[in-house]
Structures are given as C-alpha cells and as structure tokens.
C-alpha cells in the first residue's frame, strides 16, 4: 500500500506539471475552433460609403472583418484578405471606431477587398458581437455566426480554424 502512496508523491506533481504545461503551450487560437453558433445581432448602421447594406450577402458563407484605419495589424492582414476576396470569398467590412474620412482614405490607398463596409463609429454592433479590438474576423453561414478569430487572419489560421468550420457547415447542403 505504501508503494502506491510513495509513487503518488512523484506521479501527482508530474501529472499536474504535464497538464498545466500542455495548457500553457497550446495556442490560444485553438479555443475558437469550437464555437457556439449564434444569431447575427440586429443593427441600425450606415454603409461607410453611403451605399446600401445588403443583408442578403450574409447568406451562404461570408466573412465579417473588423478593421480601422488606426489599426496596424489590419495592414498586416490586408494582403491576405485581398487574396481571399480574389478567390471569391465574400468579405464584409465592419469599420470600427474610425473616422469616415480616414477610413475611406485608407481603402483608396490600400485597396478595398470588401463588398461593403458597415460604418460603426461608436462600436455599437461591435459590442453586441463581442469584439475586443481590431482586427477580428467572424465566419458567417446563412445569417448565423459560426466562427470567430481575434487578431490577424492569415493562411495558417484560415486553414486551421475556418476551413474545417466551413466544411462542416456546408456538408449538409
């Protein structure tokens, strides 16, 4: 019996060490892989360019990308977003706590990968979405949010998080 007890003294700290080590090593982005789908919140906002906000674009697969002209990481992910939109991925912008003039300038200068951008200067819709900053990207399927990435969206995160979610969502159709 005392052998069990003695081995526990060694084993228990070892188990705790390995478990916590694993939690610390694991990339936090993995958390978003299991996302509880939720309804897209209602909102009453204008288009950044005073055009039309067409909610029909949220049918099928689309991405809602939170961006701002003051956001440095948005610049980093901009080429990848452009690449996605060139590959016929529907990309909708949510311009977050920005000035309309600066935001329009930003799009003119860098290129506009979005179908349209929702202008959210106070961050009302962003708050209801649970946005903590920019950039963040939501994966939408038939008006429902099915995925969420905080920080830069790149090829790696796209493959590891969004592609499996898209495959699962569209499998039934």
């Amino acid at each position, binding site marked *: 019996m005392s052998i069990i007890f003695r081995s526990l003294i060694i084993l228990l700290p070892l188990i705790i060490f390995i478990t916590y080590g694993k939690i610390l090593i694991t990339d936090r982005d993995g958390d978003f892989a299991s996302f509880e789908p939720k309804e897209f919140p209602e909102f009453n906002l204008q288009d950044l360019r005073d055009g039309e906000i067409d909610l029909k674009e949220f049918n099928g697969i689309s991405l809602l990308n939170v961006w701002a002209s003051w956001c440095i990481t948005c610049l980093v992910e901009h080429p990848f977003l452009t690449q996605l939109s060139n590959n016929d991925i529907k990309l909708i912008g949510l311009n977050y706590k920005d000035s309309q003039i600066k935001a329009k300038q930003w799009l003119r200068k860098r290129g506009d990968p979005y179908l349209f951008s929702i202008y959210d200067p106070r961050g009302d819709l962003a708050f209801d979405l*649970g946005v*903590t900053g920019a950039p963040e990207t939501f994966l939408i399927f038939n008006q429902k949010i099915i995925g969420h990435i905080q920080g830069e969206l790149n090829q790696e995160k796209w493959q590891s998080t969004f592609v499996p979610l898209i495959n699962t969502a569209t499998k039934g159709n």
Partner: protein
Amino acid sequence: MNISKIALFSCIFFTIFLSADSIYKFDNSVEEKRFYSLISEIRCPKCTSGSIASSDVPVSRDLKQKVYELILAGSTDKEIKAYVTERFGASSDYKPAFEGANYLLWFGPFIFLGILMLIFLLNRKL
C-alpha cells in the same frame, strides 16, 4: 511668489476638484456600490488577467459605460452579467454562478484535497 510657483500651486489645487468629479454619477449609494462591485467581477476581455475596473482599454471603457447604463435602466446584477457573458463569453464572469457544472469549479479543489486526505489516512493505518 513668482509666476511658476502660482502655476504649480493652482495645478495641484485644481486637480483635487477634477478628480472629485466622478464620471459615473448615481442617484443613490446602493447603485454606486453595485456598479463598483460589478465592474470588479467582470473580466477585461483584452487583458491577460484583470477586471474592467482595473483596465482602461477601449473595450473595458465600453463595458463600464454599458454596466452604468444598465444599472440606471434598472437591470438586476444577474441580468447585467447575462448581458455581458452573452457577448463576451462565460469566461468574462470572474464570479461564476452557483449552478450546474460550476459546482465542480467551486468545490473541485476541496474534493481533490479530500481524496488526498483519504489516501493519506488509509495508508497510515495499514
């Protein structure tokens, strides 16, 4: 007294009036107490660890403003926490409710300690 001394003195003197004027005004102290206890129990979503009370990032400012508005609108503490966790996830509540799977969270360490004690005591008798 030269001009720089007067300037320094007035700076110090008027700061007191500035800091005495709180951004969040309440009609009664009950609501005020509820506000400060709530913001210390809501996790700042942008921080590694810390409440929105201790954080000044934009999203924490928005959260504090929302909690303030909801208290003035007459929402209960439970409703406000539900409102926040619905948007920012269950992990934004630093004081999880006593229900369901949360019992394991609250009593887990004590159960673990109990099992250890049991093993220890059983081993001593043999």
